[in-house]
């Protein structure tokens, strides 16, 4: 049996604006049925990449295909099964929300009035569908943008900051709805967001871009494996003091988390040694576990934006240089 083509594939894609290399030889594949996150700091080339998918921006080089169809060979066929929102969704403000969807629906095959009703219901705008878009809040416009992208039952949804301006309840509703679409309809979603928690919670795959390059990609689970060298230790009774900890070369940094918990960075992956050392010194350890990474932490470390927020132990002891990163 032949492998199904990727929902979205970028091969060696570059874009230069004058002297600025916005995207540089970027390649990525989003497999059908996946929830893929697209992360990057401001100016990383995220938006330019998203703009190139519906041909709003012409790549300097490279190929982009949707379900195996090159967008520059047969754009209509390629884009037919894709719903896209780029940046803040824009609408004809003098028209109602429903009319905006009707205009978009005309350009797609066989979108019934019933489907528009259904979408308006699901995005929570059924009651306000006849209001002019100019009176909608940012969150309502975002929801309408997602509704527009869902018209025509797309197989791939490309969403740029889809929950920007939404309240937590609205965000939760929309993400739950999208997750349900993935589960029930086999939808593929490629979502760009600066909300790390959103990506961490929602996506199973993540692509991180910085200065136009793909820095890292992989499954969220794999990327957020617990730290091997950072250990959170909870004590019963007294906790070790600075002098004790600075005597051990294997201990690189210590950060108090709560009154009875310390975060200890080790020189190597050896939490068993730490446990033994603390027990031998008479400290009562009630819990010792590798620290769970967050996507935010991971993102900051690999994009080079991170400056260690923890105070190195050596600084506390006023001996060694500061600024070590958390990650390998």
């Amino acid at each position, binding site marked *: 049996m032949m492998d199904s083509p990727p929902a979205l594939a970028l091969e060696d894609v570059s874009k230069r604006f004058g002297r600025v290399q916005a995207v540089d030889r970027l390649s990525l594949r989003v497999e059908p049925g996946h929830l893929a996150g697209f992360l990057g700091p401001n100016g990383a080339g995220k938006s330019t990449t998203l703009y190139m998918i519906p041909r709003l921006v012409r790549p300097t080089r490279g190929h982009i295909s949707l379900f195996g169809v090159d967008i520059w060979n047969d754009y209509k066929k390629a884009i037919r099964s894709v719903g896209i929102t*780029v940046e803040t969704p*824009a609408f004809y403000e003098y028209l109602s929300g429903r009319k905006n969807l009707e205009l978009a629906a005309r350009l797609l095959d066989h979108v019934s009035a019933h489907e528009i009703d259904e979408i308006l219901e699901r995005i929570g705008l059924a009651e306000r569908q006849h209001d002019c878009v100019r009176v909608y809040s940012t969150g309502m416009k975002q929801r309408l943008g997602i509704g527009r992208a869902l018209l025509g039952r797309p197989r791939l949804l490309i969403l740029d900051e889809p929950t920007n301006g939404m309240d937590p309840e609205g965000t939760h509703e929309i993400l739950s709805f999208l997750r349900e679409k993935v589960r029930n309809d086999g939808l593929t979603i490629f979502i760009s967001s600066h909300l790390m928690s959103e990506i961490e919670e929602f996506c199973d795959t993540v692509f991180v871009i910085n200065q136009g390059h793909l820095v890292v990609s992989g499954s969220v689970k794999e990327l957020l494996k617990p730290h091997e060298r950072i250990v959170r230790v909870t004590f019963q009774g007294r906790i070790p003091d600075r002098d004790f900890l600075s005597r051990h070369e294997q201990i690189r940094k210590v950060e108090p988390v709560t009154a009875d918990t310390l975060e200890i960075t080790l020189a190597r992956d050896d939490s068993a040694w730490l446990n033994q050392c603390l027990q031998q010194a008479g400290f009562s350890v009630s819990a010792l576990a590798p620290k769970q990474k967050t996507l935010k932490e991971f993102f900051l470390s690999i994009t080079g934006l991170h400056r260690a927020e923890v105070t190195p132990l050596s600084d506390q002891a006023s001996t060694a240089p500061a600024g070590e990163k958390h990650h390998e």
Partner: protein
Amino acid sequence: MSSQFVPLLRNEVTKALRRKLPYFGIFAVGLVCGIIYFIAGQINNTATANAWGYVGFSMQLVFTDIGPIAIIAFAAMLVAEETGTGTIRAALAAPVQRWELYLAKTVIGLFYMLVLSAAALLFSAALASIHYHFGAVGDSAGVVYSRNQAMQQFVLGYALSWIPLGALVMFGLLISTLVRNPGVAVAVGIGTLFLIDFTKHLVGLDPYIFTRYLNYSWLTLQQLAQGMDYQWRPEVWKMIVLSGVSAVVAFSAGLVLFVRRDLNH
């Protein structure tokens, strides 16, 4: 997938019907027709001595200033408004080719020009019929042109007047493609129109600028209304060629720019 031109055109019609600018243009033309009615009553010259003359006089004045302004303002908004607000990105993220969208905008621009021109003609004819009769054109010696002859020439002149106005639509669309802000696009469109009008004589470009023909048909028809020996040719050929070439050049330049430009801002 078949061409999306028809659904795109339907979308353009829906949008045009819900906007204020097209109605404002028609209102402005109606207002100017009303003002002309009072002016014509006071000057009482030979140009307005019969209904044909009145219509020619009124249309000539309408399409000297307010008509072209309304047409170029409408055309200049077509692309620039969507680029400025970002709606163009949503429109092009659908299974739509850029040339189809540009063509739909061109057709709606031309359609508005026809509507505005028809509105001006209707207003002028209605006001003419208050005092005059659309009968034969004559002088003291008798009938010079029969009613049917006058009617035929007016229909011909009316149709000919669309040619330079069509070129004006293409020019407005080109500006709309070049300028991303709708307000600036309208200002540039109207400003350029006036600048060309004021300077073309000074720099000797008058014979090569199509705007000189915007009211040419109506000036010729006024001669007919006075019972004079009017002549369409050879000037009408110059008008057709100059306006046609200008329209094709402006349309092609606008289309190429629109198809090739990056729409990331």
